[in-house]
């Protein structure tokens, strides 16, 4: 069974540019989560989808971040325009039934210069 995949693995962009991160959850997992780890800090929750609906988006930092999950399969996280403080590793996770035991992808390392 394929795990959670994320693309790209690494992205370097300039301040003010736009970046779109993609996450493909484990097939059949209705629950999809986005997290972010800024260097040296804890992994922080961003939002939670159940199928195509946003269940909880309380962790989204501001309106420069837009997450979508059209069709309830893969998800994208767009940052527009990117700022220096957006640099970090963005993790996607999925689970079949919800709850805290989640399967994480390898992450996308975003560097904003």
């Amino acid at each position: 069974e394929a795990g959670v995949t994320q693309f790209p693995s690494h992205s370097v962009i300039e301040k003010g540019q736009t970046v779109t991160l993609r996450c493909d959850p484990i097939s059949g997992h209705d629950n999809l989560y986005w997290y972010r780890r800024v260097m040296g800090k804890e992994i922080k929750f961003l939002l939670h989808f159940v199928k195509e609906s946003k269940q909880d988006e309380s962790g989204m930092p501001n309106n420069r971040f837009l997450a979508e999950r059209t069709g309830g399969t893969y998800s994208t996280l767009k940052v527009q325009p990117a700022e220096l403080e957006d640099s970090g590793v963005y993790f996607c996770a999925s689970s079949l039934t919800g709850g805290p035991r989640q399967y994480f992808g390898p992450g996308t390392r975003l560097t904003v210069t």
Partner: protein
Amino acid sequence: DQQVKQNSPSLSVQEGRISILNCDYTNSMFDYFLWYKKYPAEGPTFLISISSIKDKNEDGRFTVFLNKSAKHLSLHIVPSQPGDSAVYFCAASGMGRDDKIIFGKGTRLHILP
């Protein structure tokens, strides 16, 4: 304001000895605690969990202890093996099956030969 705290950024343990990783939390509403393990360039992987109604859960070489009165949990690894060298994240989740995970900053464990 961190709700899950791992005060030791790193820990070195001799191979074959016991590794003890500690974690404190502040929110008494957490009802589920987890440990995730992370290797470089990979996402966190679930290791072991414990419900707030229990004080101990064991899985092979890994045991998690929960002290609710002290709001403290610990992960014991015995005997420690070279493959255990990784970053260990303590995490907690609140009430409800679909709740987000609150992570600590992680402790880097080095197993010495």
